[in-house]
């Protein structure tokens, strides 16, 4: 187990090197550097700034320098909002994005899993058909469309919840629903499919024969088997929700990472952009890694190596 974890963690290094190199080349290829526009400053001052951020050195040397600093835990300083380090920005804003992301994951699992189990238990009856149709429709609607519809109905027409902002509990449900509901559809469909497969297995019939109640068979015996494909989906979901919440943050005015990221890329903030790329790639890696680890815990037959 320890060996497996170490082996997996080592694969992070080529991932970091690869994505940061691609991003590094792209960022530097973008016409217009971070100090080309905006503030009025003397030629000498611009030169000094370029020197400070090593922009006057050859590209490859800059990259090696960057990687060297990253390996020492230093992601550099923002080039646009000087005085702020990349680590500070991410550490300050990520909790907000992660909070929203977790709430959205809770919505998608809380709605999707029970719906999937019900549908599987009522397989091919009208309730099943209605639920699966709803799930497919829900999955097809983009989260920003959900967001606008929720603002329109719950916010503007019914005056139930605030339209945006972040900080109080009443501001959580709308963005969390907008972000989580499309995924709830996918979770419901996947839960139903795995449940149906599990229900037809011998051990489920045995459980029925032993006299276990129908609900207990569904939850304790069948659902356990549905967990493996579900956990793969959850990793995808977590990575997607955390990195893809940008538009929802925009619509609801939530001070998370998303908005800052777009500004950094469009403002040619090299260090911030690279920091985001490395950070997001790491988050995706961690999500997948945790799920792989959970396989062994959910299904003891699976041996990781």
């Amino acid at each position, binding site marked *: 187990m320890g060996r497996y974890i170490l082996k997996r963690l080592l694969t992070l290094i080529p991932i970091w090197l690869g994505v940061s190199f691609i991003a590094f080349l792209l960022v530097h290829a973008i016409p217009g550097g971070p100090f080309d526009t905006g503030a009025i400053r003397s030629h000498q001052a611009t030169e000094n700034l370029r020197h400070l951020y090593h922009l006057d050195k050859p590209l490859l040397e800059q990259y090696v320098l960057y990687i060297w600093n990253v390996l020492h835990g230093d992601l550099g300083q923002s080039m646009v909002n000087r005085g702020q380090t990349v680590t500070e920005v991410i550490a300050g804003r990520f909790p907000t994005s992660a909070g929203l992301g977790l709430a959205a994951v809770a919505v998608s699992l809380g709605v999707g899993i029970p719906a999937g189990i019900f549908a599987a238990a009522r397989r091919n009856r009208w309730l099943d058909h209605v639920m699966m149709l709803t799930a497919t429709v829900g999955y097809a609607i983009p989260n920003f*469309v959900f967001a*606008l519809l929720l603002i329109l109905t719950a916010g503007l027409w019914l005056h139930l919840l605030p339209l945006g902002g972040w900080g109080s509990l009443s501001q959580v449900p709308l963005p969390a629903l907008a972000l989580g509901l499309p995924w709830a559809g996918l979770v419901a469909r996947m839960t139903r499919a795995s449940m149906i497969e599990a229900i037809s297995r011998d051990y489920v019939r045995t459980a029925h024969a032993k006299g276990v109640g129908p609900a207990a068979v569904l939850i304790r015996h069948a659902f356990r088997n549905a967990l493996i494909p579900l956990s793969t989906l959850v990793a995808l979901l977590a990575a997607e929700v955390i990195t893809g919440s940008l538009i929802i943050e925009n619509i609801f005015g939530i001070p998370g990472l998303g908005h800052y990221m777009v500004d950094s890329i*469009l403002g040619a903030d090299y260090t911030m952009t690279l920091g985001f790329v490395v950070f997001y790639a790491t988050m995706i890696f961690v999500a997948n890694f945790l799920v792989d680890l959970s396989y062994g815990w959910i299904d003891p037959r699976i041996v990781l190596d």
Partner: protein
Amino acid sequence: MIDETGTTGAASRAAAQTPVDLDAIEGVATAGAPRSPARNAWRRLRAHRLALASLLLFLAIAVVAIFAPLLSGASPTAMASLPLQPPGAAHLMGTDSLGRDLWARVAYGARISLEVGLGSQLMAVAIGMAVGAGAGFYGGVVGALLMRATDMMLSLPALLFALLLLALLGSSVQVVILALGLSMWPAIARIERGEVLQVMNQEYVEAAYAIGCSNLRVLRRHVLPNTLGPVAVQATFGVSQAIFAEAFLAFLGLGAQPPTPSWGRLLTEGYEYIRTSPHLVLFPALAISLTLLAINFIGDGLRDALDPHQH
């Protein structure tokens, strides 16, 4: 699996000595079969009523996109009436904040969405199948390198990549297609590789080598056609993901530039007037949701019809 160097080398020598008509030999195997796989798949797809209805809906959307100038009755960019008119007889979906006909803008917006959806997937399938088939068929160092490159692209967040490319090459629909095509091929490549590895173990591939087919011919005639099903399914869902991504980027103000109507941009523009004129948001939202829904149902139908793992 067949020892490639030994068997195929000997077989191609044999073929060189006595020229045989491979088409004729291969034809014997299929001529007697009652139904081709393609016809079986079409039969299963027809049974999937929801998918068929969705196919019709999708075709209708495509017709609107292609014949937008004829069907819209108004220019999507010129002022047609007073601003912010509600839906009515003169303007089916009302007018926007600049008095432009919303129906015309939604109809022209379908062009951009379909261009992006189909264009990016064409690109993703071309790259993904080449990389995946190369990795699966040849294996070894080349295969390993191709798959590492695939994994690398997968761990680069797609949205970030698209933003970088848009910043680099300028904001236009073409760059959006390029960015999405380049970030969506790894998914296809992984599926293609898995399929190729599986097909290579089938007896008919061994048989094809035995009758003297070259590597290239086996790949082209026997391996690739049999991997198309799962790729087509993935690409179908890819079309809806790409349309979603285009709307997403347009919502942020990237991609098609004003006054070009893109569904995502219509949503952003409408959002400013959501309190007084909700129809500006509702119609584009309906258009994009219906399109994505239709494509997803088609994808479901295709999966039931084409993907052998589901049976």
